[in-house]
C-alpha cells in the first residue's frame, strides 16, 4: 500500500461520494447553528473535483491536491471554500512533486493543511470549527508517524479517528468563530458541520488506501 497519485484520485472520488451521501446531514447540522448550506457547498465543490478528475488524471498526489484546492476555492464559496482551498493548497505544496507519500510526509501535509486553515480563519482549538477536527488529526498522525510502528495506513486511520472524535468534541462547545458564533450560548449542543465534513474527508483517505 503506497500513497500515490492513484490513491489520491481514489481519495478525492471517495470524498465526493461522502459529501453526496452526507449532503443532507451536513445541511441539517448547518441549519441548526448556521445557514443550511454546508452540505450543498461541499457537495457542489467535490462534484466539481470529480468532473476535473474526469478531464485529466493528475500525475502526483501533490498535483491532485492542488487541482482540488483550486476547484474548491472556485466552487464552494462561503467560509468552507477558502478554508478547504487553503488546506488542500498548503498540503499540495508540502507534498511537492513526490510520486509517493511516506507517513512522515503525510503527517507534514496534514500539519500544513491545518496551519493553512488557522492562518486564514484565525480559529483556535475550542472555537467549535473544523480546526477542532484537524488539530487532533494532525497530532494523531504525527504521533503515529513518529512512533514508527504505524504504516501509512495506520497514520491515515489515526488521523481519521482523531478527526471524528474531534468533531464529536465540538458538541458542547460555544462557537467563537464563523456563523455559529452569532448564536452565542445557543450554539452549544450542536455538532459543527465543518468539523464533520473534515472528518469525512480524512475518513475517505482511509477508504482509498484500504
Amino acid at each position, binding site marked *: 500500500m503506497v500513497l500515490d497519485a492513484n490513491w489520491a484520485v481514489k481519495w478525492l472520488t471517495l470524498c465526493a461520494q461522502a459529501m453526496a451521501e452526507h449532503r443532507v446531514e451536513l*445541511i441539517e447540522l448547518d*441549519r441548526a*447553528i*448556521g*445557514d*443550511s*448550506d454546508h452540505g*450543498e*457547498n461541499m457537495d*457542489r465543490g467535490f462534484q466539481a473535483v470529480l468532473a476535473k478528475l474526469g478531464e485529466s488524471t493528475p500525475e502526483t498526489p501533490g498535483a491532485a491536491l492542488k487541482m482540488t484546492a483550486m476547484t474548491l*476555492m*472556485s*466552487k*464552494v*464559496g*462561503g*467560509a*468552507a*471554500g*477558502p*478554508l478547504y482551498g487553503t488546506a488542500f493548497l498548503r498540503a499540495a505544496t508540502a507534498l511537492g512533486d513526490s510520486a509517493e507519500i511516506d507517513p512522515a510526509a503525510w503527517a507534514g501535509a496534514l500539519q500544513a493543511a491545518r496551519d493553512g486553515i488557522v492562518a*486564514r*480563519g484565525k480559529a483556535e482549538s475550542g472555537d467549535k470549527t473544523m480546526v477542532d477536527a484537524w488539530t487532533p488529526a494532525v497530532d494523531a498522525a504525527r504521533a503515529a508517524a513518529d512512533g514508527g510502528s504505524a504504516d501509512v495506513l495506520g497514520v491515515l486511520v489515526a488521523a481519521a479517528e482523531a478527526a471524528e472524535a474531534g468533531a464529536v468534541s465540538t458538541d458542547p462547545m*460555544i462557537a*467563537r*468563530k*464563523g*456563523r455559529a*458564533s*452569532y*448564536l*452565542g450560548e*445557543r450554539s452549544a449542543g450542536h455538532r459543527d458541520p465543518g468539523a464533520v465534513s473534515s472528518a469525512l474527508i480524512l475518513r475517505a483517505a482511509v477508504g482509498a488506501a484500504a
Partner: protein
Amino acid sequence: MKKLINDPKSVVQEAVQGFGLAHAGLVTVSEDPTYITRKDAPVAGKVGLVSGGGSGHEPLHAGYVGRGMLDAAVPGAVFTSPTPDQILPATLAVNSGAGVVHIVKNYTGDVLNFETAAELAEAEGVNVRTVLVNDDVAVEDSLYTAGRRGVGGTVLVEKIAGAAAERGDNLDAVAAIGERVNANVRTMGVALSACTVPHAGTPSFDLAEDEIEIGIGIHGEPGRHRIPMENADSITNRLMDAVLTDLKVSSGDKVLLFVNGMGGTPLSELYIVYRRAVQVLADAGATVERSLVGNYITALEMQGCSISVLRLDDELTELWDAPVHTPALRWGV
C-alpha cells in the same frame, strides 16, 4: 417547500438571467463566472465599486448596480458567499485605473473570498480597498464572535459610497466615506418566520406560532434570543432600543431611518413599524431627515424586518440625495 423555481441547483443562474433580461439597459450579466456589471463599466476615471455575497437577499446586490451606486455585483449560491474566481473578473471589469472598492459584509466566508480576490487583483495591478460592513448590533463585536454582521447598513454604504465615487472622489476617499457610513449606522432585526433555502427544502429554523426571533441576520440563522410574540410597537421599541443605545443617538441628531422588510412581510406592516420608530426617535430628540421603507435586503421569504439608523451629516445627506439609477433604487434621473 413551494417555490417558483425549476430546480434548486439553477435558482441563481435563472434568476440572474431573468434579471439581465429585465434590466438590459442598465446592466451586463456575465454568466460563467457569474457577476453583473454596470452597462457602461468601466467608467473612465471613476473608482469602481464591487459588492457581493450569497444570493437570497435580493434586490441586494445586483439590484444596486448602476449609476451612482455599484459598478459590479457578485452573487454566490443561496446564502453562500461568492468565490474569488467570480470576484476577480468583476473587479477587473470595473477598474478604470482609478482602483476598486470592495464592499464586504462581515461574514467569515465573504471576508475570506473577497480577501483572496483582492490579493489576486492587486497582483494584476489593481488598487483595491475593502470596506467591511458590520452594523448588526444583535451580535457582540468581541473576541468571542466572528464580529458584528453586515446587514441593513450595507444598502446605505453602497448608496453613499457609490455617490462619492460618482462625483469623482478618489479611491481612499470613497473607501473613507464607506467606512464613515458604516461607523454611523446600526441595525437590528426580528423574524416572525424562518425562510427556506431552496437546496435545503426545510425552514432554516423552527419557530412556534407564538414566538419570534430577536436579533436575526439575513441568512435564516436563528437570532440571539427567542421571545413570545409581541405587538409591533413593542417589537419596534426593542429594536430601536438596541440600535439607539449602541449608536449613542442623542438629542439634536439628524438621522436616516431605514425600515427593511425581510421578504415576506407586507409593506403596510413596515409602515406600522416605521411609524413607531419615528416616535422613538422623536422621544430621543433626534429628527428623521431621510427615510427608506421596503424590501431592500432580504432573507428569501422570511417574515420580519430590520431597522437601521444612520447618523447623518451634511455630506452624507448630500450623497444620499445624489442621483442614483439602478434596478432597485432610483431617483434624480
